């Protein structure tokens, strides 16, 4: 499994998903990856559903909007398209019907069980508009 998910795996096609970290979270995510304790499951408390939210591959604009409030940049995680289709595409849900052209935008609701898959890929921290790379982690902890 881990060999298959190795970030050194070459792929002609990649997919990038995006997350605007909440205030104070970007360093944690970059240093330690995305972990269950960051997304607690507390069924009696609204907003703690145990899911890690990402903007879909074509919908960086969602992360950009949150970034405007959070001011922590946008984390981009890039993976091969095969892995995306196998693990993450089934998690896509409609975020809204807006977007620049009035089309649907999608987000990913990633459960705890797939965070290790997510963490197997390189990630970078970019400015909200994506114009500047602030930090990049290409070596992933095994």
């Amino acid at each position, binding site marked *: 499994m881990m060999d298959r998910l190795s970030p050194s795996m070459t792929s002609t096609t990649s997919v990038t998903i995006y997350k605007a970290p909440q205030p104070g979270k970007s360093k944690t995510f970059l240093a330690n990856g995305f972990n269950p304790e960051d997304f607690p499951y507390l069924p009696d408390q*609204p*907003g703690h559903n145990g899911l890690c939210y990402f903007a879909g591959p074509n919908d960086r604009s969602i992360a950009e909007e949150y970034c*405007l*409030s959070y001011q922590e940049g946008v984390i981009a995680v890039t993976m091969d398209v095969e892995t995306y289709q196998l693990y993450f595409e089934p998690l896509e849900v409609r975020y*809204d019907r807006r977007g620049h052209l009035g089309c649907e935008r999608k987000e990913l609701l990633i459960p705890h069980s797939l965070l290790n898959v997510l963490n197997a890929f390189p990630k970078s921290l970019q400015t909200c508009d994506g114009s500047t790379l602030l930090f990049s982690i290409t070596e992933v902890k095994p």
Partner: protein
Amino acid sequence: MNQQDWETIQSKYPVGQLIQGTVIQHMPFGVFIDIGEAGVLGLVRIVDFLDEGRMTPDRYPELGKKIAAIVYEYGLVEDPQIHLNAKPSALHEFLVPLRGERLTSTV
């Protein structure tokens, strides 16, 4: 809640409807609204308060405050939430539906 009940709720609160509720919880990503439906919460995400500029949690309506917003999306049956738009443009469009081209495509 099962899928059928969730669809019933969605029919009761269709996209574009103005609903009122009480702010019951602040979160970094938005505020939860009690809309008076057991097992269902309204959610105004932090990005859905302003048309322009930076929204921050310190500007959220106070807990216990009654607010109105426009239905524009639904969450999953596992976590049933009605997503609400509280942007001035959306509220204005509902309250004063001008003829001709719409300013927003939300509702």
